[in-house]
């Protein structure tokens, strides 16, 4: 089931009524059953994976807590890792590994004839796998006590607002929230509703509208002018941001209505002045997960420059691979790894030099930095979006064809103008939000809240694309 579908509207209406009518354990049962229903609506067979993951991690968590034997605890952690990563490896990466191995073998002159399987990628597997892994690792580290109530634990793993595309909510953030009463709260309803509407506006009115242009550019880049490909690349950067952050907004807003607080996942990332900052603003729940469970265990920045760079690169390569079973994702991760290394190596000293020696005004330098980060991010997005390296290469070749860089050679001008109009509107609101904090204002000035929410509904009605298209991050 996806948020931008008619069936979800019906689902959430029924769920809301029942949720606030019930209390205590019956409410917990409702959350659990509704979440499984939500996921099973897509393909009920894959519920088995969630059930197994839940059962294994629930048992492992308790057993790890109850034993003091370090060896046993480690073995139990391994059991959890093997099961969770095993599912991920099989369903997401099996064919990728086979193809890669076969490719290498062919290069060496062998004809391996390896089997490939027609495997369906279970929706959201990367998200809930990382979520449950954080639980077992935290229990292993004794940073978290295990959850003995299996219903609470199963609901934590499967809670529908963030089940398929995050934010990845850590058990240490989620499980304690079951202690609260979650009674109906008007302020939560108002603020949550605002967040949900804002998410729908991002997804339905902007991301899905510009998707038409982006899909055209990437389908046949060789026949398009440099100007059209340029527009396509810029629009993709906003499509992926708004699609994903829109989903996060809806998830955070829904959870808020039902009394749960999810962590923020995006903080206007395209205003970042550096790549370290970018990764503190983009997909925060994943980047902080990778930091805490991969980068820091690898040594972080504690063992000299070389090891820091190595750890950064390894983290970003795996972060790339997390997104999908394709070398283009790995290369996307590699580019971001390089950006982070170069930032430490060149960017920070250069920034200091420009500010102190050349005396470039801070505002101008900030603008240059934001533009540089945005441009380099777009270079990486080209690989992220492309099916293969050939497509990415053609995109860059077309961008270099200056003779065709003309506004006259841009088709679909209406959709493009509409897309950019809405993007500028959104960026304007995001910038203004730094100063005025609209959600807070909606609470303090109810009339402002009512009119601004109504405006969002009008904008969605006027500019929305209602094809019930899936969110991009579902595939990850």
């Amino acid at each position, binding site marked *: 089931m996806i948020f931008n579908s*008619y069936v979800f509207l019906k689902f959430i209406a029924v769920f809301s009524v029942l949720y606030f009518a019930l209390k205590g354990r019956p409410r917990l049962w409702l959350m659990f059953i509704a979440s499984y229903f939500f996921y099973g609506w897509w393909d009920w067979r894959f519920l088995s994976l969630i059930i197994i993951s839940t059962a294994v991690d629930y048992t492992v968590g308790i057993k790890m807590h109850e034993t003091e034997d370090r060896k046993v605890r480690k073995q139990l952690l391994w059991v959890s890792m093997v099961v969770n990563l095993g599912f991920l490896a099989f369903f997401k990466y099996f064919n990728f590994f086979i193809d890669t191995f076969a490719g290498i073998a062919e290069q060496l002159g062998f004809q391996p004839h390896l089997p490939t399987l027609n495997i369906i990628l279970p929706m959201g597997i990367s998200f809930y796998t990382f979520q449950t892994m954080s639980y077992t690792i935290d229990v292993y580290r004794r940073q978290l006590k295990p959850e003995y109530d299996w219903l609470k634990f199963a609901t934590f793993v499967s809670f529908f607002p963030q089940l398929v595309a995050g934010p990845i909510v850590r058990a240490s953030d989620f499980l304690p929230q079951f202690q609260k009463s979650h009674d109906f709260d*008007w302020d939560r309803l*108002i603020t949550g509703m605002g967040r949900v509407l804002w998410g729908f506006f991002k997804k339905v009115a902007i991301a899905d509208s510009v998707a038409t242009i982006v899909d055209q550019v990437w389908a046949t880049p*060789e*026949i*398009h*002018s440099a100007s059209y490909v340029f527009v396509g690349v810029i629009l993709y950067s906003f499509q992926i941001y708004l699609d994903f952050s829109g989903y996060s907004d809806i998830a955070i807003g829904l959870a808020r209505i039902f009394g749960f607080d999810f962590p923020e996942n995006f903080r206007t990332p395209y205003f970042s002045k550096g790549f370290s900052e970018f990764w503190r603003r983009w997909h925060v729940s994943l980047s902080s997960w990778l930091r805490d469970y991969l980068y820091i265990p690898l040594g972080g920045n504690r063992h000299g420059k070389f090891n820091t760079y190595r750890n950064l690169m390894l983290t970003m390569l795996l972060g790339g691979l997390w997104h999908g079973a394709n070398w283009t994702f790995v290369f996307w991760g590699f580019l971001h790894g390089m950006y982070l290394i170069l930032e430490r190596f060149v960017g920070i000293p250069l920034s200091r030099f420009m500010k102190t020696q050349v005396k470039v005004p801070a505002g101008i330098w900030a603008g240059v930095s934001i533009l540089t980060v945005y441009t380099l991010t777009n270079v990486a997005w080209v690989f992220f979006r492309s099916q293969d390296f050939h497509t990415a290469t053609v995109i860059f070749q077309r961008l270099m064809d200056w003779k065709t860089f003309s506004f*006259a*050679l841009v*088709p679909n*001008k*209406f*959709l493009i*103008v*509409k897309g950019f109009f809405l993007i500028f509107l959104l960026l304007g609101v995001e910038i203004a939000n730094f100063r005025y904090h609209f959600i807070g204002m909606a609470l303090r000035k*109810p*009339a402002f*809240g*009512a*009119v601004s*929410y*109504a*405006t969002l*509904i*009008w904008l969605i*009605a*006027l*500019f*929305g694309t*209602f*094809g*019930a298209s899936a969110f991009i991050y579902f595939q990850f």
Partner: protein
Amino acid sequence: MRRRWLWLILFLVAVVAGDRGGAWLLSRQVRDKSQFRYSRLYTGRARADILLVGNSRGLPLFQPYIEEATGRTTLNLSYNGLPNYLAVAFVLDYLDRYPAPERIVYDITICNGGNPPLTIGMGPYAPYSARVDSLIKAVSDQDTTGSYYLAWRGQQLSHLYRYDSEVFLQMLYYLRKTDKYWLLDRVIPSAMVEQLPDFKPLPFDIWPSMMDDLRKMVAAAKARGTEVKFIVGPYFPGYADKLPNLQNLMDTTRQATGLPVYDFSRAMTRPEYFADYQHPNLKGAREYVRLLQERGVLPGKKDRKSGPAPVSSQPIR
């Protein structure tokens, strides 16, 4: 508690009032004032001697060149992906509302299935045309997936949603400028030319209902003394050979309507005349008009001084 109820009422009132008020404003300030073809058609500002009809392949029936070559006023009712049933509805609406045009030039390659999103997108014109309204309803009724039915229901619920389409953006774009010059001004990219041997176009869907619509249109035109000329516009050299049932389409149309079909599908052989495989560009449009006139599809030049005043400048109703 009372304040909360007040808030809820204020919110719902704001949603409904803004929706209705916004839609009313758009209908008055954009739809009815736009120079876009269908806005003019439904607000009495589209009188012409020659109607030009097609999907995107009807756009190269370039009005400025045709008006220059024939000395007659034109109205191009073509639109990207325009389905046959909508095109016929527009023509019949025109015939009902205006003095009979001299001629209708109709590119039959329009007969290629339906286009539910575009049909639904014509929502802003539904209040003007019972035909458009019933077509939108028909599309929603036939929808097996339910999304077009929901779109239709959405249009009943939200009047602003009626403007949620590319058609509305066209209205906005042509708010203060004519749409007569709408045509691709580019030359087919070499990469596309190279891909032609591997390109497999889809066959035409030839449905009996399409031929019924055409028959209806021809009968209505004949009754008003308007001549109908069916054509197949030019394709990029070699492309027409790949169309599996083009000849079948022409034969079926001829049999159904009793009128000849003028075939220009292979008439233009220079690549620089095309924007892509299916669309002549601005340069090609000039040659296209010459060919149309040479074959008698378009009339010869009329001396404007000896004839009546240009009809498009005359007020209607």
